[in-house]
């Protein structure tokens, strides 16, 4: 069953086609990896799906409902969570407060929201840091904070922009494990990731973009051997 169906989604900024005619489907409970060189339109695609950028045309069907052009908060309330490539923690609030703000999206009772937030903080393995201010946390910890905050809104679909970007090598395996555990929690995940090994490891399907266009979609094995994908990353011979 598909939880998200994107059809002919397009967006241009001035004359530049950031996303052009992109279509794909995400099955409930899977992890979809999105890859592509810099400027391929991955983050734009996330912004279009989550409402942070207004799409020009196409449709975005989430659980059978067209959410094309909805406001970000409405989309979030329907069950689509996201994290940001450029991290956006509430810096002057503690980790717990950050996650509680997420929990308040579905829960009004303070105690219930707090306990739920703590449970999720434990899930991302930062329980002992709960009273630390977000600005005191390391980049890896802040990624977990963003994940926890988004999870606290009970998303059915979670879009994660660059899970392992900008963190040191030691931190990466833990983050990857977390993403895998999300699937066990029943959350469908779309993730942008630059590390091909990780994408191949965790994804059920992979969507490859280049210069705003979809160049490939399939299971990791197919993508790995897809000539267009290899060209996009390494450059074609006549371009070189």
């Amino acid at each position, binding site marked *: 069953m598909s939880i998200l169906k994107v059809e002919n989604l397009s967006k241009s900024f001035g004359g530049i086609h950031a996303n052009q005619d992109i279509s794909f489907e995400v099955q409930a409970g899977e992890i979809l990896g999105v890859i592509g060189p810099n400027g391929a339109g991955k983050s734009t695609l996330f912004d279009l799906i989550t409402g942070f950028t207004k799409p020009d045309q196409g449709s975005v069907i989430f659980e059978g409902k067209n959410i094309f052009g909805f406001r*970000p908060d409405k989309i979030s309330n329907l069950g689509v969570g996201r994290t940001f490539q450029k991290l956006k923690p*509430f810096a002057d609030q503690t980790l717990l407060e950050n996650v509680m703000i*997420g929990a308040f999206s579905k829960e009004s009772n*303070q105690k219930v929201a707090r*306990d739920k937030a703590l449970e999720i903080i434990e899930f991302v393995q930062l*329980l002992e840091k709960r009273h630390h201010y977000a600005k005191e946390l390391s980049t890896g910890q802040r990624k977990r904070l963003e994940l926890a905050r988004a999870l606290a809104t009970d998303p059915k679909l979670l879009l994660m922009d660059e899970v392992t970007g900008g963190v040191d090598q030691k931190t990466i395996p833990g983050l990857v494990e977390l993403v895998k555990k999300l699937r066990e929690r029943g959350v469908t995940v779309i993730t942008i990731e630059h590390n091909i090994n990780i994408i191949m490891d965790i994804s059920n399907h992979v969507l490859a973009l280049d210069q705003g266009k979809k160049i490939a979609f399939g299971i990791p094995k197919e993508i790995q051997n897809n000539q267009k994908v290899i060209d996009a990353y390494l450059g074609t011979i006549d371009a070189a």
Partner: protein
Amino acid sequence: MSDLKIAQSEPLFNSNKKMTYLVLGFFAFLILLPALGPTKFFLHLMIMIFMHAVISQSWNIIGGFSGQISLGHGAFFGIGAYATSFFYVEYGLTPWIGILIGIIVCAIVAILIGIPMLRLSGHYFAIATLLVGISFQIIFQRWDLVGAASGLWVPLTSEDSLYAIQFHSSKVPYYYLFLIFFTIIFFITWLISRSKLGYRLRAVRDDAQAAQSLGIDVAKHKIIAFAISAMMMSPMGSLFAQYILIVDPDRMFNFEISIIALLITVLGGIGYVWGPLVGTLILIPLAEYARIFFGGTGGAVDLMVYGIVLMFICIFKPSGIISFLPNHILHREKMR
């Protein structure tokens, strides 16, 4: 017990006994103060402190909570002042109902001007509020129904009257009136700061996009904050009108009200529940004593001192005087 269970059994808010007693003691002192036989001037000083603390708290809700710099908050002070005086002068309606009318009108005005204006961000919002503040003054200067430039003179009652909120024999009733409003409004702010609304307003202030991604309607929350802020400002205008019994556009829609609310809050600690009070306790005595000391010749001396104090605060303690308090206490009492 697992770590999670331990964490979940922690109280929602750390209560610091010492701080609680300090605050309760402070209010007990305020209640008993008139019994100590203070001078008329001292009572006046306290009334001005209560009034400015609330004015600044009102500003703090929009400036400190939701992060929008308003330069026209004096407009809501003026609306409150005119609401009570106009209905009393024209129809003999008790100012108590006038206070309510003022609050309701302010909420409506805040929502109506907030809907278009809160779409503006940063400097543009500040400029827009500045112009709204000035336009209100101009409108009231030319509006014959409310006495235009000469304003309204509230007819004096022959003796003290709770119905008309006029007390000629003593300042003590005014003292308690202002104290009650001060207490209620600070209590409401304290409640908001630790409520779901408070959390969400801080989220909107710190990062609007992140807030949206968590399902928070940013525009709606800014408007709610603006309306609450306006509703807090209004009764101060009403009470001040009852205190001096003259209402005119130059006094009630004075630009200085908007500015002083900002100055006090920034000095005391923007975004902290008690910041406006701390700022008020420093600036208002300074202003009132300077007025006595220098009289008419040195009318602006207090403003010069303000300027210098503010400069030092901005350089050495940008988060306000309140941030001299230790961190664990601050954290509990903050909005930030």
